[in-house]
């Protein structure tokens, strides 16, 4: 039996079809526009940082910024702009943080991946990861109101704001990052390698140190590098607990200001737009951005270049 379809029905079908085809063509364009938001963000960050940094270097020489040692941006009569004091504080706090995060993070990873039973791992791993979910402002409060007073009992010469306490707390914050990325690297080492080592009579510890860790080394080192990047960019803990002293020093008992804390101070302070102090913000931020970008790319390079594929 021949199917009978009215003319109006056919027109309607045709129209539906052409609308559908338009959707098929239009949707990817819209989706592409959405995807380009993330690219525009990167472009926006680079443009704002670079443009304002250029403005800064019309007032201040490279020499002063990178080689002199005095940082007094708000001194009206004789302002000076050197990034070295901020850099020393950032490197110190990052160093202290890694001294805490690397040993604890790596041993936690080894325990969870090599020693813990499945049941213990299922309980412990999420608990360790809770540490990563605590907002940094809470860590800052903890460093300032708890860790510093406790440390001052032990080290009486410690200032009320110092770089030691936020460094330690920052390390605790980074533990889950190091632990979880290192654990991923350790557990991707195939069991046959552990079993091979143990068949030769190695204890679990010997198998771990001689075979499993070397095999997972690229992932483990990448986790350290990402931890460093995180520590360099961390803001609130140091802003609250390390004060705003801009002296070039390596004395961890003193108050010091990191690059990130400087940005917070200047944006929330009284440096008006257009002043050299305001532009210095962007020069510091660009330095910070380049440091973290370099670390992130290094981490990616290490884990890609040296990864053993099993």
């Amino acid at each position: 039996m021949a199917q009978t379809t009215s003319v109006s029905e056919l027109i309607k079908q045709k129209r539906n079809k052409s609308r559908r085809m338009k959707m098929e063509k239009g949707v990817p364009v819209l989706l592409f526009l959405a995807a380009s938001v993330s690219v525009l963000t990167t472009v926006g960050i680079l443009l704002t940082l670079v443009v304002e940094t250029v403005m800064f270097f019309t007032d201040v020489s490279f020499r002063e910024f990178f080689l002199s040692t005095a940082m007094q941006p708000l001194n009206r009569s004789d302002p000076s702009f050197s990034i070295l004091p901020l850099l020393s504080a950032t490197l110190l706090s990052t160093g202290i943080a890694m001294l805490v995060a690397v040993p604890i993070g790596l041993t936690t990873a080894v325990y969870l991946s090599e020693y813990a039973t499945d049941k213990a791992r299922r309980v412990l791993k999420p608990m360790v990861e809770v540490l990563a979910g605590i907002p940094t402002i809470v860590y800052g409060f903890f460093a300032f109101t708890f860790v510093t007073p406790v440390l001052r009992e032990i080290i009486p010469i410690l200032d009320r704001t110092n770089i030691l306490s936020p460094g330690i707390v920052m390390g605790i914050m980074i533990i889950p990052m190091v632990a979880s990325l290192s654990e991923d690297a350790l557990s991707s080492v195939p069991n046959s390698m552990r079993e091979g080592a143990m068949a030769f009579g190695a204890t679990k510890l010997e198998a771990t140190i001689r075979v499993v860790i070397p095999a997972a080394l690229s992932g483990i080192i990448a986790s350290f590098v990402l931890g460093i990047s995180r520590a360099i960019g961390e803001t609130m803990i140091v802003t609250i607990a390390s004060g705003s002293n801009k002296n070039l020093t390596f004395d961890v008992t003193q108050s010091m200001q990191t690059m990130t804390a400087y940005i917070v101070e200047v944006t929330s302070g009284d440096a008006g737009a257009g002043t050299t102090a305001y532009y210095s913000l962007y020069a510091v931020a660009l330095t910070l951005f380049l440091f973290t970008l370099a670390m992130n790319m290094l981490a990616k390079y290490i884990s890609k270049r040296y990864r053993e594929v099993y």
Partner: protein
Amino acid sequence: MAEYIDHELVHKRLPRRIALNKIVRGLFLASTLSGLIVLAVLLFDVIRDSWGWLDWQFLTSVTSFSPEQAGIIGAISGTLWLMTIVGPLTMIIGVATAVYLEEYVKEGRVRTFFETNISNLAGVPSIVFGLLGLTVFVRMLGMGSVVLAGGLTMSLLVLPIVIVASQEALRAVPSYLREASFGMGATRWQAIRTVVLPAALPNILTGMILAMSRAIGETAPLIAIGIPALLIPLPGSLFDSFTVLPVQIYYWTIDAALTAEYAYMAAATIVVLLVIMFLLNATAIFIRNKFQQRF
């Protein structure tokens, strides 16, 4: 045949090697627990400091110089206002980006370009996003430090998280579902809209909620865009000034040197913030367990 292994030596050293393994195992467990002990101390310290301050009056009053009258209703409403921008905006842009990368581009240079960009963006310190917001939204577009500027800044910050979570959710949808819909005559977009997205929705929502939880706890970018330290009126529109819970905690903590009570108020605000984040995370886990389909 020569003896290659000195059995006597092996036996002599064996007990020591086994003992060392046991000791190290204990040390590693202690190290794992040390992180958890710090977490417990932190929570204990915060709850102890907040004791007696966290009451109904504190939750429902506006801020004030006088500790007895101060409250955090302004910060709570500011946080909610912020979410009304960050939630929908990152959901739409994030999911659209993920669909574009997973369903349309699939592989090749374009995708590598976008993904490299997204992963680099995820590693940019949050304070740098704050500077972007300050320069572009607050100054260049002349918004001032209002809800909209804060919301847009925060949206850009958490966008990479939403994109990556949505990509993983889409990747978990098996390709036979797509092929079945093509086989039934669906176009690509019809297959995505009616089959793939609904199947990926629980995982997308889980990622969204975790991103919101991150946005609620972020402080640095909002301080950078210039949120005032003391704010009395509640925000009534996207173009009003506002403050949020973490920023309130920040100003009370640094002022604790002047007035000791501020530290207790900061602690009470932290408890509220942590409870909100805990509820969000619990919701995410609930959604994942309840609606996640195994294919």
